[in-house]
């Protein structure tokens, strides 16, 4: 791989998505306030317009979507690194 080859980019992106996926929801994200557990007695919809709500939505959707594919991708990369050096 070259200095800024595509392989490095793939590694960086996989590591970042891993970092997003392993955050604990109730111990960390609820403390900061980055969850979507709004009051059920709200009456209407959630506040979906602000930047922070969209970020929270994005993080939550990335976590639920990428959990299982990340397992597969991580296993592949581990095999690649162990066997093929």
């Amino acid at each position, binding site marked *: 791989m070259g200095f800024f*080859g595509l392989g490095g980019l793939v590694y960086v992106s996989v590591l970042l998505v891993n970092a997003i996926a392993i955050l604990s929801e109730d111990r960390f994200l609820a403390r900061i306030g980055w969850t979507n557990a709004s009051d059920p007695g709200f009456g209407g919809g959630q506040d979906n317009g602000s930047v922070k709500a969209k970020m929270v939505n*994005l993080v939550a959707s990335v976590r639920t979507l990428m959990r299982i594919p990340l397992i597969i991708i991580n296993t592949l990369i581990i095999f690649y690194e162990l066997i093929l050096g």
Partner: protein
Amino acid sequence: MQRPAHSNPPPAHSPPLHHPVPQHVSTVPQLRSPPPPVPQSQPQNTYGYSQQQQQGGGPGGGGGQGGYIHPAFGGIMSDPTAQMGFQVGKSAIMAGQEYMEQNLNRYVNVSALKHYFNVSNSYVVNKLYIVLVPWWHRPWSRQQRLSNNGQDGYYLPPREDINSPDMYIPMMALVTYILLSTLLAGLRGAFHPELLGLTATTAFAVVLLEILGLKLGTYLLSISSESQLLDLVAYSGYKFVGIILTLFLSEIVNRTRLGTGGGGTGGWFGWCVFLYVFSANAFFLLRSLRYVLLPDTSPNTGSAAASYTVARSQRNRRTQFLFIYSYVVQFVFMWLLSRQSADPKIGKA
């Protein structure tokens, strides 16, 4: 088979030479298009041909074309089997092309791509001038035209509208950038064949990251952008023009002055050119993307309802995003692309 045997000594008199007498008229079919038939019959012919084609008969389609081909090729191929073979081959090629077009149209929107390549020479020259010197260009909005069959307006192609983004300049600029930076590396003696692929993947990764950042920004700021993805790709490809200019000029100057080493952005001349080109590109992007990212400035395209729900803070945030994108992000990426590997000649001596 008809040559005399070479092992015998050459006879005193020359033997009767046997020139091979051609048995078949095997002429190569001349590669010119058949003369166009009478115009009234042509659309009916092709329509009838495609009908027969879809019903699935290769020889049937070839037979349908037989009356059309005869007056054009009668003089060339007098052999009926060769003619039939030619017709079968031609219908097979047409079927293959149609199959490929159908499959390609599922993945790549070919007609949309054609809109971006509909450029003219004067458009290319004027657009390059605008990209490099955008300060004096006055109207920046793209022109629309309402189509006749009731759909909402579509944008004019680049041939008629100087503000419309095209894909011809960015693609040419990308290829030129890859070749130029590899050439400069070769001139410095630092060439290895992976450099071509490395530069190409770096450039593609930069474009990809830009588009991702832009899409992320539009999602986070709730900007409903009506422009297509290829527009954004085209806009992010315009900076390659400036990078080519930087590399080229700084290489020329650094060769003839023999003073400061290193091309690209080494030396003060390279930095000056780079800063000018970077600011020109940022201004160009600011003006062009204003109509993409800040849709509340467009008066009457049905967004009258949408403009009321945009708060003032959101508008400020969008403007900030546009500024940050145009200046900071572009600076990082342009610097990245103007980098070159170290000069191995300087390390000696």
